[in-house]
């Protein structure tokens, strides 16, 4: 009897599970259009890109299109400019991300305190993030950094800095500055949210136990901010690795190839050389590299910042 009852129970559970599964499937139906849309706008273009990357296809020579096998990939891996662009992409991503994270942390800590006009300050500090990147780039290029009429040269002229061609003599630094300026508010907002979610009781308890300000920051605030910093680094890297507007508007990738990053080089290959085959192959290579790096970077970062790692270090 007992066995039978058990069996009956099992059957009941099994049928309940099947019912659940059916219900779940029904519940997912409304998501289908979104899924289809995502496939149409991301996966089909990617497949097309792979198809184009195997062709010798130049818009300038529309009648000579033919299958080229892996020729485009050979071209890319033997192309010194592609390697330069890859290195530039790393520099122009890592440096702005870290700088804006540090600056963002500093400003967030200041704004977390009670200061007069905190709301106004916060709005002002966020504004670089709200300005259209192209407009901001033009302001940097002409209003601030221009050799003859730029404000920076004017402000520095009493100190003997005069007619400095910032954009061409310090191209990488210029782009890094603009990107950092633009992304600091983003980091600040994320970290400020983290700071404001820290419970006051815990901090008060720490103070009662005799912890100093620095100790509290190192042992409590920073570990608490870990997730927020991770999020900032990941999102920031995803956006900044595609930096295009500032480079296109301010330096056009130059002088030489000093500020040519992968997105800009891809643009040049596709829309100036009109070599669709090579540009597509480059796109495919970049996607592969990004997936590999993203996987490793995410793992390393979360290892670095995990509670244990943090405690081990501090």
């Amino acid at each position: 009897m007992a066995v039978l009852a058990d069996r009956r129970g099992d059957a009941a559970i099994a049928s309940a599970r099947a019912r659940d599964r059916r219900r779940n499937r029904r519940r997912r139906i409304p998501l289908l259009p979104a899924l289809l849309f995502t496939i149409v706008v991301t996966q089909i273009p990617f497949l097309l890109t792979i198809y184009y990357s195997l062709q010798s296809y130049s818009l300038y020579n529309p009648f000579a299109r033919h299958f080229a096998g892996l020729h485009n990939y050979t071209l890319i891996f033997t192309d010194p400019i592609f390697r330069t662009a890859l290195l530039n992409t790393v520099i122009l991503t890592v440096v702005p991300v870290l700088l804006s994270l540090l600056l963002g942390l500093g400003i967030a800590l200041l704004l977390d305190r009670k200061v007069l006009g905190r709301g106004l300050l916060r709005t002002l500090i966020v504004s670089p993030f709200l300005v259209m990147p192209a407009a901001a780039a033009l302001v940097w290029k002409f209003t601030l950094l221009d050799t003859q009429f730029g404000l920076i040269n004017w402000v520095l002229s009493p100190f003997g800095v005069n007619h400095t061609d910032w954009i061409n003599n310090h191209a990488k630094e210029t782009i890094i500055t603009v990107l950092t300026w633009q992304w600091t508010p983003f980091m600040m907002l994320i970290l400020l949210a983290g700071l404001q979610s820290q419970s006051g009781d815990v901090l008060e308890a720490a103070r009662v136990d005799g912890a100093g300000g620095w100790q509290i920051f190192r042992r409590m605030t920073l570990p608490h901010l870990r997730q927020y910093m991770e999020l900032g680094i990941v999102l920031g890297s995803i956006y900044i690795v595609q930096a295009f507007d500032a480079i296109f508007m301010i330096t056009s990738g130059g002088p030489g190839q000093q500020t040519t990053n992968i997105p800009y080089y891809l643009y040049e290959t596709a829309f100036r050389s009109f070599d669709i085959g090579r540009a597509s192959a480059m796109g495919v290579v970049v996607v592969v590299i990004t997936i590999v790096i993203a996987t490793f970077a995410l793992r390393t970062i979360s290892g670095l910042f995990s509670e244990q790692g943090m405690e081990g270090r501090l």
Partner: protein
Amino acid sequence: MAAAAAAVTVAGLAACASSSSSGQASGQQTITVAVVNNPQMIDIQKLTPKGFSASHPNIKVKYVTLDENTLRDQVTKDVAAGGGQFDVVMIGPYEVPTWAKNHWIDDLSSFAAKDAAYDVNDLIKPIRDSLSVGGKLYASPFYGESSFLMYRKDLLAKAGLTMPAHPTWDQVAAMAKKLNEPGKGMAGICLRGKTGWGENLAPLDTVVNTFGGQWYDMSWNAHLTSPAFEKATNFYVNLIKAAGEPGAGNFSFNECANAMMQQKAAMWYDATVGASVIDAPGSPIAGKLGYAPAPVELTKNSGWLWSWALAIESSSKHKDAAWTYISWATSKQYIQYAGKQLGWASVPPGSRYSTYSNPSYKKAAGAFATPTLNEINGVNVSHPGVSPQPYVGVQYVGIPEFEDLGTRVSQEITAAIAGQETVAQALTKSQGYAVPVGQAHKSG
């Protein structure tokens, strides 16, 4: 990605534009015209509502104005992919042969033949020839230009200098160094340094030609590291460093025109059309300018030849409306109209003989009218330098790959001007870009 997003946005906007045009009163058409942001093109946009739209209520003209480099990217992308975003595009002698061969633009001769008032033979011959393939006109010149030296007569006189009738580059360099006064914010000469084959390579290539250098010899061997090419490039870069405008790496036509008008440069070697900007009424230095032919070394002439001309995209759906617009914008009547509205000195020059026989133009532009015409007539586009060349073009190499190759080389030149690398380094890299392109032409 940003570029792709931008392209999608632009395409979206274009789609909006075309749908709005079909939605309006029957027969009304909108044509989209892509132009370079040079002063004469800004002028025609101001004159279009009264000068054109008033008499052609069925044709709505929408302008897209871009700087030279962006315009090239956008327009080439559009015609090559058959995007149909633009109906009328502004191009020049470099684009016409390839584009005509690829059937990206339409032959205008048949339109012009039907249009008696549009006097094709009045178009200045070297300019017209540079825009024709197989005797058929593919783009109508809005203006035509060569290059020459513009200088401040008053400043030269003050410094006790006289401009020779046919100056050499060495003479010009010596004068530029005397006129250069960085303490007073006055540069001896303004020369283009901005990246872009149509930007810094244009004047530099004319210098290379007259110094005896060339890009390719008759069997397509690249010669960017030849002694003559290197000597010319060193000369150009050193002249900018010694007596050029500060921050030259960002300077091109519009920036130099501004520097001249703000009295920050004493001489300017650039397009002849520059005179119509800086020597026009309203310019603070109007009337103070003298003009000399493009400076030379080993050749007799060294001016370039260019024209910003209007062509009809083959994928356009409003070709008749597009021709109606082009035949107005490049007509004698437009030049008359612009002369009356804006003053004769600033009308689009170098496109029509009738402009140069017009008494009002001769009076207003007397200082630079004849020098411009002489320079244009003196250009030999198939043999501008000392040695023969297998390609057409003075300040460019007339092959499709040059858009990419020229941009690469011009990036290196900007780096050399900014002192980021030596001229020898820049040219060694450039030679590396140029050799494979030459190889392709050898086998092809």
